[in-house]
Protein backbone atom coordinates (compact mmCIF):
# COMPACT_ATOMS: atom_id res chain seq x y z
CA UNK A 1 0.00 0.00 0.00
CA UNK A 2 2.91 2.38 -0.35
CA UNK A 3 2.09 4.47 -3.36
CA UNK A 4 2.97 8.05 -4.09
CA UNK A 5 -0.14 9.56 -2.50
CA UNK A 6 0.34 7.93 0.91
CA UNK A 7 3.99 8.91 0.84
CA UNK A 8 3.13 12.56 0.13
CA UNK A 9 0.53 12.56 2.88
CA UNK A 10 3.06 11.10 5.31
CA UNK A 11 5.58 13.75 4.27
CA UNK A 12 3.12 16.62 4.76
CA UNK A 13 2.06 15.16 8.11
CA UNK A 14 5.69 15.01 9.28
CA UNK A 15 6.32 18.59 8.17
CA UNK A 16 3.21 19.73 10.06
CA UNK A 17 4.45 17.96 13.19
CA UNK A 18 7.88 19.59 12.84
CA UNK A 19 6.26 23.03 12.53
CA UNK A 20 4.15 22.26 15.60
CA UNK A 21 7.35 21.68 17.59
CA UNK A 22 9.64 24.36 16.15
CA UNK A 23 7.18 27.27 16.14
CA UNK A 24 6.33 27.13 19.88
CA UNK A 25 10.02 26.51 20.57
CA UNK A 26 11.00 29.71 18.75
CA UNK A 27 8.36 31.68 20.68
CA UNK A 28 9.70 30.15 23.91
CA UNK A 29 13.23 31.21 22.94
CA UNK A 30 12.05 34.78 22.28
CA UNK A 31 10.28 34.99 25.63
CA UNK A 32 13.14 33.26 27.43
CA UNK A 33 15.32 36.24 26.53
CA UNK A 34 12.58 38.49 27.94
CA UNK A 35 12.31 36.34 31.09
CA UNK A 36 16.08 36.42 31.50
CA UNK A 37 16.22 40.20 31.37
CA UNK A 38 13.27 40.54 33.73
CA UNK A 39 14.42 37.92 36.26
CA UNK A 40 18.01 39.12 36.37
CA UNK A 41 16.72 42.67 36.45
CA UNK A 42 14.65 42.05 39.58
CA UNK A 43 17.49 40.08 41.17
CA UNK A 44 19.70 43.13 40.68
CA UNK A 45 16.98 45.54 41.90
CA UNK A 46 16.24 46.85 38.40
CA UNK A 47 13.00 46.64 36.46
CA UNK A 48 14.25 45.22 33.18
CA UNK A 49 12.63 45.96 29.81
CA UNK A 50 9.34 47.83 30.29
CA UNK A 51 9.06 50.23 27.33
CA UNK A 52 7.91 48.20 24.32
CA UNK A 53 4.35 46.99 24.78
CA UNK A 54 2.57 46.11 28.00
CA UNK A 55 5.24 45.41 30.72
CA UNK A 56 7.77 45.30 27.89
CA UNK A 57 6.20 42.14 26.46
CA UNK A 58 6.92 43.14 22.87
CA UNK A 59 10.63 43.65 23.59
CA UNK A 60 11.77 40.28 22.09
CA UNK A 61 9.87 41.04 18.88
CA UNK A 62 11.43 44.49 18.69
CA UNK A 63 14.86 42.86 19.18
CA UNK A 64 14.21 40.38 16.39
CA UNK A 65 13.11 43.15 14.00
CA UNK A 66 16.21 45.14 14.89
CA UNK A 67 18.48 42.17 14.20
CA UNK A 68 16.77 41.51 10.85
CA UNK A 69 17.42 45.09 9.75
CA UNK A 70 21.08 45.10 10.63
CA UNK A 71 23.72 44.82 7.96
CA UNK A 72 25.42 41.44 7.60
CA UNK A 73 29.16 42.03 7.58
CA UNK A 74 31.61 39.41 6.37
CA UNK A 75 35.28 39.94 7.22
CA UNK A 76 37.35 40.10 4.02
CA UNK A 77 39.98 37.62 5.12
CA UNK A 78 37.57 35.13 6.69
CA UNK A 79 36.82 31.74 5.22
CA UNK A 80 33.60 32.83 3.51
CA UNK A 81 31.93 29.45 3.13
CA UNK A 82 32.59 28.20 6.67
CA UNK A 83 31.80 31.64 8.09
CA UNK A 84 28.33 31.37 6.57
CA UNK A 85 27.83 27.70 7.53
CA UNK A 86 28.82 28.05 11.21
CA UNK A 87 25.54 29.59 12.49
CA UNK A 88 23.58 26.87 10.68
CA UNK A 89 25.77 24.15 12.24
CA UNK A 90 25.09 25.66 15.61
CA UNK A 91 21.27 25.85 15.35
CA UNK A 92 20.66 22.59 13.42
CA UNK A 93 21.55 20.13 16.24
CA UNK A 94 19.70 22.30 18.77
CA UNK A 95 16.52 21.90 16.72
CA UNK A 96 17.10 18.33 15.47
CA UNK A 97 17.34 17.01 19.03
CA UNK A 98 13.66 17.85 19.60
CA UNK A 99 12.64 15.03 17.24
CA UNK A 100 12.87 12.41 20.00
CA UNK A 101 11.50 14.43 22.94
CA UNK A 102 8.21 12.94 24.22
CA UNK A 103 5.88 15.69 25.45
CA UNK A 104 3.14 13.32 26.63
CA UNK A 105 2.52 9.59 26.29
CA UNK A 106 2.94 8.86 22.57
CA UNK A 107 3.16 12.57 21.68
CA UNK A 108 6.59 12.39 20.06
CA UNK A 109 7.85 12.98 16.54
CA UNK A 110 10.12 9.92 16.34
CA UNK A 111 9.79 7.26 19.04
CA UNK A 112 13.19 5.62 18.49
CA UNK A 113 14.77 3.03 20.74
CA UNK A 114 18.12 4.78 21.00
CA UNK A 115 16.52 8.11 21.99
CA UNK A 116 18.98 8.97 24.75
CA UNK A 117 21.92 8.19 22.51
CA UNK A 118 20.48 10.41 19.78
CA UNK A 119 20.07 13.29 22.23
CA UNK A 120 23.63 12.84 23.45
CA UNK A 121 24.95 12.73 19.86
CA UNK A 122 23.06 15.92 18.96
CA UNK A 123 24.22 17.82 22.02
CA UNK A 124 27.81 16.71 21.42
CA UNK A 125 27.96 18.05 17.86
CA UNK A 126 26.62 21.45 18.87
CA UNK A 127 30.20 22.54 19.56
CA UNK A 128 31.05 22.46 15.85
CA UNK A 129 29.16 25.71 15.23
CA UNK A 130 31.35 27.48 17.78
CA UNK A 131 34.58 25.80 16.65
CA UNK A 132 34.01 26.60 12.98
CA UNK A 133 32.78 30.14 13.67
CA UNK A 134 35.85 30.79 15.77
CA UNK A 135 38.24 29.49 13.18
CA UNK A 136 36.55 30.85 10.04
CA UNK A 137 36.45 34.41 11.44
CA UNK A 138 40.26 34.54 11.15
CA UNK A 139 40.46 36.72 14.22
CA UNK A 140 42.21 36.35 17.56
CA UNK A 141 39.36 36.48 20.08
CA UNK A 142 37.06 34.09 18.19
CA UNK A 143 39.99 31.68 17.92
CA UNK A 144 40.58 31.78 21.68
CA UNK A 145 36.89 31.22 22.20
CA UNK A 146 36.82 28.20 19.89
CA UNK A 147 39.76 26.65 21.77
CA UNK A 148 38.19 27.26 25.17
CA UNK A 149 34.85 25.94 24.02
CA UNK A 150 36.32 22.76 22.52
CA UNK A 151 38.30 21.93 25.67
CA UNK A 152 35.33 22.63 27.92
CA UNK A 153 32.85 20.61 25.86
CA UNK A 154 35.15 17.58 25.63
CA UNK A 155 35.71 17.60 29.39
CA UNK A 156 32.08 17.94 30.41
CA UNK A 157 30.75 15.55 27.79
CA UNK A 158 32.38 12.64 29.65
CA UNK A 159 30.65 13.47 32.92
CA UNK A 160 27.40 14.02 31.04
CA UNK A 161 27.73 10.61 29.36
CA UNK A 162 28.19 8.89 32.72
CA UNK A 163 25.06 10.60 34.03
CA UNK A 164 23.19 9.28 30.98
CA UNK A 165 24.55 5.78 31.61
CA UNK A 166 23.28 5.88 35.18
CA UNK A 167 19.75 6.63 33.96
CA UNK A 168 20.01 3.88 31.33
CA UNK A 169 21.04 1.39 34.01
CA UNK A 170 18.18 2.39 36.28
CA UNK A 171 15.51 2.36 33.57
CA UNK A 172 16.95 -0.54 31.56
CA UNK A 173 16.11 1.19 28.30
CA UNK A 174 17.33 3.94 25.98
CA UNK A 175 13.82 4.88 24.91
CA UNK A 176 12.82 8.20 26.48
CA UNK A 177 9.17 7.21 26.96
CA UNK A 178 10.19 4.03 28.78
CA UNK A 179 12.55 6.04 30.97
CA UNK A 180 9.79 8.46 31.96
CA UNK A 181 7.30 5.65 32.62
CA UNK A 182 9.87 3.86 34.80
CA UNK A 183 9.63 6.83 37.19
CA UNK A 184 5.90 6.36 37.82
CA UNK A 185 4.46 6.52 41.30
CA UNK A 186 4.86 10.03 42.69
CA UNK A 187 7.67 12.42 43.39
CA UNK A 188 9.85 9.98 45.39
CA UNK A 189 10.07 7.64 42.42
CA UNK A 190 11.71 10.23 40.20
CA UNK A 191 15.33 9.43 39.37
CA UNK A 192 16.45 12.72 40.87
CA UNK A 193 16.26 10.98 44.24
CA UNK A 194 18.09 7.65 43.83
CA UNK A 195 20.43 9.18 41.24
CA UNK A 196 20.85 12.49 43.04
CA UNK A 197 24.63 12.87 42.43
CA UNK A 198 24.14 12.04 38.74
CA UNK A 199 21.30 14.56 38.58
CA UNK A 200 23.62 17.29 39.87
CA UNK A 201 26.47 16.13 37.62
CA UNK A 202 24.15 16.18 34.61
CA UNK A 203 22.84 19.62 35.43
CA UNK A 204 26.30 21.13 35.93
CA UNK A 205 27.63 19.60 32.72
CA UNK A 206 24.48 20.68 30.91
CA UNK A 207 25.08 24.27 31.95
CA UNK A 208 28.70 23.91 30.88
CA UNK A 209 27.70 22.43 27.50
CA UNK A 210 25.44 25.37 26.74
CA UNK A 211 28.26 27.81 27.58
CA UNK A 212 26.12 29.62 30.10
CA UNK A 213 27.29 31.43 33.22
CA UNK A 214 29.25 30.48 35.30
CA UNK A 215 30.84 28.40 32.52
CA UNK A 216 30.72 31.09 29.84
CA UNK A 217 34.48 31.41 29.29
CA UNK A 218 33.81 30.86 25.57
CA UNK A 219 31.96 34.18 25.50
CA UNK A 220 33.68 35.94 28.39
CA UNK A 221 32.62 39.53 27.63
CA UNK A 222 35.24 41.09 29.87
CA UNK A 223 38.12 38.96 28.51
CA UNK A 224 37.49 38.14 24.86
CA UNK A 225 34.62 40.58 24.11
CA UNK A 226 32.04 37.96 23.05
CA UNK A 227 34.22 35.14 21.83
CA UNK A 228 33.24 33.19 18.78
CA UNK A 229 30.62 35.64 17.45
CA UNK A 230 32.69 38.82 17.65
CA UNK A 231 32.82 39.08 13.86
CA UNK A 232 29.15 38.26 13.31
CA UNK A 233 26.43 40.86 12.89
CA UNK A 234 22.74 40.97 12.15
CA UNK A 235 20.86 37.72 11.78
CA UNK A 236 23.86 35.32 11.70
CA UNK A 237 24.63 36.63 15.19
CA UNK A 238 20.94 36.26 16.01
CA UNK A 239 21.08 32.61 15.00
CA UNK A 240 23.90 31.92 17.48
CA UNK A 241 21.74 33.59 20.08
CA UNK A 242 18.74 31.44 19.10
CA UNK A 243 20.85 28.28 19.25
CA UNK A 244 22.14 29.10 22.74
CA UNK A 245 18.64 29.63 24.12
CA UNK A 246 17.18 26.62 22.26
CA UNK A 247 19.96 24.54 23.82
CA UNK A 248 19.11 25.87 27.28
CA UNK A 249 15.49 24.79 26.81
CA UNK A 250 16.67 21.45 25.45
CA UNK A 251 18.95 20.72 28.43
CA UNK A 252 16.13 21.69 30.82
CA UNK A 253 13.75 19.37 28.97
CA UNK A 254 16.19 16.44 28.98
CA UNK A 255 16.81 16.95 32.70
CA UNK A 256 13.05 16.96 33.34
CA UNK A 257 12.59 13.78 31.31
CA UNK A 258 15.51 11.83 32.75
CA UNK A 259 15.45 12.91 36.38
CA UNK A 260 12.19 14.71 37.18
CA UNK A 261 9.63 12.31 35.76
CA UNK A 262 8.85 14.14 32.51
CA UNK A 263 5.13 14.64 32.12
CA UNK A 264 4.28 12.68 35.30
CA UNK A 265 2.51 14.46 38.14
CA UNK A 266 4.48 14.77 41.40
CA UNK A 267 1.31 13.86 43.38
CA UNK A 268 0.65 10.45 41.85
CA UNK A 269 -0.65 7.90 44.38
CA UNK A 270 -0.98 10.50 47.13
CA UNK A 271 -4.48 9.89 48.60
CA UNK A 272 -6.24 13.27 48.36
CA UNK A 273 -3.81 15.47 46.46
CA UNK A 274 -3.44 12.93 43.65
CA UNK A 275 -7.21 12.88 43.01
CA UNK A 276 -7.50 16.65 43.12
CA UNK A 277 -4.70 17.27 40.64
CA UNK A 278 -5.43 14.37 38.29
CA UNK A 279 -7.30 16.64 35.83
CA UNK A 280 -4.09 18.54 34.99
CA UNK A 281 -2.70 17.25 31.66
CA UNK A 282 0.85 15.91 31.63
CA UNK A 283 2.20 18.60 29.34
CA UNK A 284 1.51 21.20 32.05
CA UNK A 285 3.72 19.32 34.53
CA UNK A 286 6.46 18.98 31.92
CA UNK A 287 6.31 22.68 31.06
CA UNK A 288 6.34 23.60 34.76
CA UNK A 289 9.48 21.50 35.32
CA UNK A 290 11.17 23.00 32.26
CA UNK A 291 10.25 26.51 33.40
CA UNK A 292 11.67 25.86 36.86
CA UNK A 293 14.97 24.56 35.45
CA UNK A 294 15.21 27.54 33.10
CA UNK A 295 14.70 29.79 36.10
CA UNK A 296 17.61 27.98 37.79
CA UNK A 297 19.71 28.79 34.71
CA UNK A 298 18.93 32.50 35.08
CA UNK A 299 19.37 32.33 38.85
CA UNK A 300 22.83 30.81 38.45
CA UNK A 301 23.75 33.52 35.97
CA UNK A 302 22.72 36.24 38.39
CA UNK A 303 24.47 34.57 41.34
CA UNK A 304 27.81 33.03 40.40
CA UNK A 305 30.91 34.78 39.10
CA UNK A 306 32.54 33.21 36.02
CA UNK A 307 34.85 30.26 36.68
CA UNK A 308 38.52 30.58 35.87
CA UNK A 309 39.66 28.21 33.12
CA UNK A 310 41.71 25.93 35.43
CA UNK A 311 38.78 25.81 37.87
CA UNK A 312 36.50 24.61 35.08
CA UNK A 313 38.94 21.84 34.19
CA UNK A 314 39.39 20.79 37.82
CA UNK A 315 35.65 20.67 38.46
CA UNK A 316 35.05 18.60 35.34
CA UNK A 317 37.86 16.07 35.61
CA UNK A 318 38.57 15.83 39.33
CA UNK A 319 35.11 16.21 40.78
CA UNK A 320 32.25 15.45 38.39
CA UNK A 321 33.77 12.41 36.65
CA UNK A 322 34.85 10.59 39.87
CA UNK A 323 31.49 11.30 41.53
CA UNK A 324 29.63 10.00 38.48
CA UNK A 325 31.82 6.88 38.28
CA UNK A 326 31.35 5.98 41.95
CA UNK A 327 27.59 6.50 41.78
CA UNK A 328 27.43 4.47 38.57
CA UNK A 329 28.92 1.46 40.40
CA UNK A 330 26.44 1.91 43.27
CA UNK A 331 23.51 2.12 40.85
CA UNK A 332 24.69 -1.01 39.06
CA UNK A 333 24.76 -2.90 42.37
CA UNK A 334 21.34 -1.49 43.35
CA UNK A 335 19.85 -2.62 40.05
CA UNK A 336 21.30 -6.11 40.40
CA UNK A 337 20.04 -6.62 43.98
CA UNK A 338 16.71 -4.91 43.07
CA UNK A 339 17.08 -2.32 45.80
CA UNK A 340 13.61 -1.14 46.92
CA UNK A 341 11.68 1.10 46.40
CA UNK A 342 13.25 2.29 43.14
CA UNK A 343 14.72 -0.73 41.43
CA UNK A 344 12.33 -3.56 42.28
Amino acid at each position, binding site marked *: MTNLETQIIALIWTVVKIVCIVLPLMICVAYLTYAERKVIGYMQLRIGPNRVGWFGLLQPIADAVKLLHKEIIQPTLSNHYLFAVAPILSIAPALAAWAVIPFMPNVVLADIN*AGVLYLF*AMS*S*IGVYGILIAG*WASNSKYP*MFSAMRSAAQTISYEIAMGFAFVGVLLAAGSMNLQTIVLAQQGGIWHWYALPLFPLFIVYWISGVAETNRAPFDVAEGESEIVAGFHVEYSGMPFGIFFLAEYANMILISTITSLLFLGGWLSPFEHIPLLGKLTSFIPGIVWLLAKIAFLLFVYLWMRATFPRFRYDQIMRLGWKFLIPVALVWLCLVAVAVVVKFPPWFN
Partner: protein
Amino acid sequence: MLNAFPTTLVVFYAFAALLIASAFMVILSRHPVQSALYLVLAFFASAALWIMMQAEFLGLILILVYVGAVMTLFLFVVMTIPMHTIPIDKTRLLYIGYGSLVLVLFLGVMAKIIHPLNHIVFQLNNFQAPGISGATAIGESLYTTYVFPFEIAGFLLLVAIIAAISLSWKTDRRKIINDVSAQVNVKAKDRLKIVKMKAEKPQQDSTEPVQHD
Protein backbone atom coordinates in the same frame (compact mmCIF):
# COMPACT_ATOMS: atom_id res chain seq x y z
CA MET B 1 -2.10 5.08 -8.96
CA LEU B 2 1.42 6.34 -9.24
CA ASN B 3 4.44 4.26 -8.39
CA ALA B 4 5.90 4.76 -4.96
CA PHE B 5 8.90 7.03 -4.71
CA PRO B 6 11.95 4.87 -3.86
CA THR B 7 12.85 6.81 -0.71
CA THR B 8 15.19 4.21 0.77
CA LEU B 9 17.19 3.81 -2.43
CA VAL B 10 17.45 7.55 -3.03
CA VAL B 11 18.55 8.23 0.54
CA PHE B 12 21.04 5.37 0.38
CA TYR B 13 22.64 6.55 -2.87
CA ALA B 14 22.65 10.17 -1.71
CA PHE B 15 24.54 9.31 1.47
CA ALA B 16 26.79 6.83 -0.32
CA ALA B 17 27.72 9.48 -2.89
CA LEU B 18 28.25 12.02 -0.10
CA LEU B 19 30.47 9.55 1.76
CA ILE B 20 32.67 8.81 -1.26
CA ALA B 21 32.86 12.46 -2.33
CA SER B 22 33.80 13.70 1.13
CA ALA B 23 36.30 10.87 1.59
CA PHE B 24 38.00 11.99 -1.65
CA MET B 25 37.96 15.60 -0.50
CA VAL B 26 39.73 14.60 2.73
CA ILE B 27 42.82 13.71 0.72
CA LEU B 28 42.38 16.19 -2.14
CA SER B 29 41.79 19.26 -0.01
CA ARG B 30 45.00 21.23 0.54
CA HIS B 31 43.94 22.80 3.78
CA PRO B 32 44.19 20.65 6.93
CA VAL B 33 41.14 22.17 8.62
CA GLN B 34 39.03 21.62 5.53
CA SER B 35 40.30 18.04 5.32
CA ALA B 36 39.28 17.46 8.93
CA LEU B 37 35.82 18.92 8.30
CA TYR B 38 35.37 16.71 5.24
CA LEU B 39 36.30 13.76 7.45
CA VAL B 40 33.52 14.82 9.84
CA LEU B 41 31.13 14.86 6.88
CA ALA B 42 32.31 11.38 5.88
CA PHE B 43 31.65 10.10 9.41
CA PHE B 44 28.19 11.60 9.24
CA ALA B 45 27.37 9.98 5.92
CA SER B 46 28.57 6.56 7.11
CA ALA B 47 26.58 6.94 10.33
CA ALA B 48 23.50 7.61 8.21
CA LEU B 49 24.23 4.48 6.17
CA TRP B 50 24.61 2.38 9.31
CA ILE B 51 21.33 3.70 10.65
CA MET B 52 19.73 2.69 7.34
CA MET B 53 21.05 -0.84 7.95
CA GLN B 54 19.15 -0.69 11.27
CA ALA B 55 22.41 -0.57 13.19
CA GLU B 56 21.26 2.64 14.88
CA PHE B 57 23.35 2.04 17.98
CA LEU B 58 26.56 1.83 15.93
CA GLY B 59 25.60 4.84 13.84
CA LEU B 60 24.87 7.06 16.83
CA ILE B 61 27.99 5.87 18.65
CA LEU B 62 30.00 6.77 15.54
CA ILE B 63 28.62 10.32 15.68
CA LEU B 64 29.07 10.50 19.43
CA VAL B 65 32.62 9.21 19.65
CA TYR B 66 34.21 10.21 16.35
CA VAL B 67 32.33 13.37 15.43
CA GLY B 68 31.58 14.60 18.93
CA ALA B 69 34.86 13.80 20.66
CA VAL B 70 37.73 12.58 18.45
CA MET B 71 37.28 15.05 15.61
CA THR B 72 36.71 17.95 17.99
CA LEU B 73 40.09 17.25 19.57
CA PHE B 74 41.60 16.73 16.12
CA LEU B 75 40.28 20.08 14.90
CA PHE B 76 41.57 21.62 18.11
CA VAL B 77 45.10 20.57 17.09
CA VAL B 78 44.75 21.22 13.35
CA MET B 79 43.32 24.72 13.83
CA THR B 80 46.55 25.90 15.40
CA ILE B 81 48.32 25.32 12.05
CA PRO B 82 48.68 28.68 10.23
CA MET B 83 46.14 29.54 7.53
CA HIS B 84 48.44 29.05 4.52
CA THR B 85 48.38 25.69 2.81
CA ILE B 86 51.15 23.20 3.37
CA PRO B 87 53.55 22.90 0.41
CA ILE B 88 54.11 19.48 -1.11
CA ASP B 89 57.26 17.91 0.20
CA LYS B 90 60.11 16.75 -2.00
CA THR B 91 59.94 13.35 -0.33
CA ARG B 92 56.48 12.58 -1.66
CA LEU B 93 57.75 9.52 -3.52
CA LEU B 94 58.37 7.95 -0.14
CA TYR B 95 54.77 8.63 0.80
CA ILE B 96 53.60 6.97 -2.42
CA GLY B 97 55.51 3.84 -1.37
CA TYR B 98 53.96 3.80 2.12
CA GLY B 99 50.57 4.73 0.71
CA SER B 100 50.46 1.88 -1.79
CA LEU B 101 51.53 -0.59 0.91
CA VAL B 102 48.61 0.54 3.11
CA LEU B 103 46.30 0.47 0.09
CA VAL B 104 47.22 -3.17 -0.71
CA LEU B 105 46.68 -4.21 2.92
CA PHE B 106 43.39 -2.36 3.09
CA LEU B 107 42.13 -3.83 -0.18
CA GLY B 108 43.09 -7.29 1.08
CA VAL B 109 41.00 -6.83 4.22
CA MET B 110 38.12 -5.44 2.17
CA ALA B 111 38.27 -8.37 -0.24
CA LYS B 112 38.12 -10.77 2.68
CA ILE B 113 35.11 -8.99 4.20
CA ILE B 114 33.15 -8.56 0.97
CA HIS B 115 33.83 -12.13 -0.17
CA PRO B 116 30.51 -14.01 -0.13
CA LEU B 117 31.98 -16.83 1.97
CA ASN B 118 32.38 -14.64 5.04
CA HIS B 119 29.63 -12.07 4.97
CA ILE B 120 30.68 -10.24 8.13
CA VAL B 121 28.94 -7.06 7.07
CA PHE B 122 25.59 -8.67 6.58
CA GLN B 123 25.67 -10.27 9.99
CA LEU B 124 24.84 -6.79 11.29
CA ASN B 125 21.26 -7.58 10.38
CA ASN B 126 21.31 -10.34 12.97
CA PHE B 127 21.33 -7.66 15.67
CA GLN B 128 17.71 -7.06 14.79
CA ALA B 129 16.55 -10.35 16.24
CA PRO B 130 13.05 -9.86 17.70
CA GLY B 131 13.04 -8.23 21.09
CA ILE B 132 16.78 -7.55 21.14
CA SER B 133 17.99 -4.06 20.36
CA GLY B 134 21.35 -3.38 18.74
CA ALA B 135 22.87 -2.22 22.02
CA THR B 136 21.94 -5.44 23.85
CA ALA B 137 23.30 -7.65 21.08
CA ILE B 138 26.57 -5.72 20.90
CA GLY B 139 26.89 -5.72 24.68
CA GLU B 140 26.30 -9.44 24.89
CA SER B 141 28.83 -10.34 22.21
CA LEU B 142 31.41 -7.86 23.61
CA TYR B 143 31.22 -9.22 27.15
CA THR B 144 30.90 -12.92 26.32
CA THR B 145 32.36 -14.04 22.98
CA TYR B 146 34.83 -11.20 22.51
CA VAL B 147 35.57 -10.41 26.13
CA PHE B 148 39.34 -10.99 25.86
CA PRO B 149 39.92 -8.91 22.69
CA PHE B 150 37.73 -6.21 24.24
CA GLU B 151 39.62 -6.13 27.52
CA ILE B 152 42.98 -6.24 25.75
CA ALA B 153 41.97 -3.28 23.58
CA GLY B 154 40.90 -1.39 26.69
CA PHE B 155 44.18 -2.22 28.41
CA LEU B 156 46.19 -1.03 25.39
CA LEU B 157 44.31 2.27 25.46
CA LEU B 158 45.07 2.61 29.17
CA VAL B 159 48.78 2.03 28.47
CA ALA B 160 48.63 4.66 25.73
CA ILE B 161 47.01 7.17 28.08
CA ILE B 162 49.66 6.59 30.76
CA ALA B 163 52.41 6.84 28.13
CA ALA B 164 51.02 10.13 26.79
CA ILE B 165 50.76 11.61 30.29
CA SER B 166 54.24 10.50 31.30
CA LEU B 167 55.70 11.89 28.07
CA SER B 168 54.12 15.31 28.56
CA TRP B 169 54.63 15.46 32.31
CA LYS B 170 57.60 17.46 33.47
CA THR B 171 58.29 18.05 37.14
CA ASP B 172 59.05 21.75 36.70
CA ARG B 173 55.56 22.25 35.26
CA ARG B 174 54.18 21.58 38.70
CA LYS B 175 55.19 25.09 39.64
CA ILE B 176 52.30 26.65 37.75
CA ILE B 177 49.73 24.28 39.23
CA ASN B 178 47.65 26.02 41.88
CA ASP B 179 47.36 24.59 45.36
CA VAL B 180 43.58 24.45 45.72
CA SER B 181 43.45 24.01 49.49
CA ALA B 182 45.72 27.03 49.95
CA GLN B 183 43.39 29.04 47.70
CA VAL B 184 40.31 27.95 49.61
CA ASN B 185 41.79 28.42 53.08
CA VAL B 186 43.13 31.89 52.47
CA LYS B 187 41.77 34.50 54.88
CA ALA B 188 41.19 38.15 54.20
CA LYS B 189 43.90 39.17 56.65
CA ASP B 190 46.52 37.22 54.66
CA ARG B 191 45.91 39.36 51.62
CA LEU B 192 44.61 42.64 52.93
CA LYS B 193 46.05 44.95 55.55
CA ILE B 194 43.79 47.62 56.99
CA VAL B 195 45.70 50.62 58.27
CA LYS B 196 44.10 53.17 60.54
CA MET B 197 45.32 56.69 59.94
CA LYS B 198 44.25 60.18 60.76
CA ALA B 199 42.42 62.24 58.18
CA GLU B 200 44.66 64.76 56.51
CA LYS B 201 43.75 68.37 56.12
CA PRO B 202 42.73 69.42 52.61
CA GLN B 203 45.10 71.84 50.93
CA GLN B 204 44.08 75.42 51.59
CA ASP B 205 44.81 76.78 48.13
CA SER B 206 42.79 74.17 46.18
CA THR B 207 40.10 75.84 44.04
CA GLU B 208 37.91 72.80 43.59
CA PRO B 209 35.96 71.29 46.52
CA VAL B 210 37.03 67.81 47.60
CA GLN B 211 34.79 65.17 46.01
CA HIS B 212 33.08 62.67 48.23
CA ASP B 213 31.34 59.60 46.88
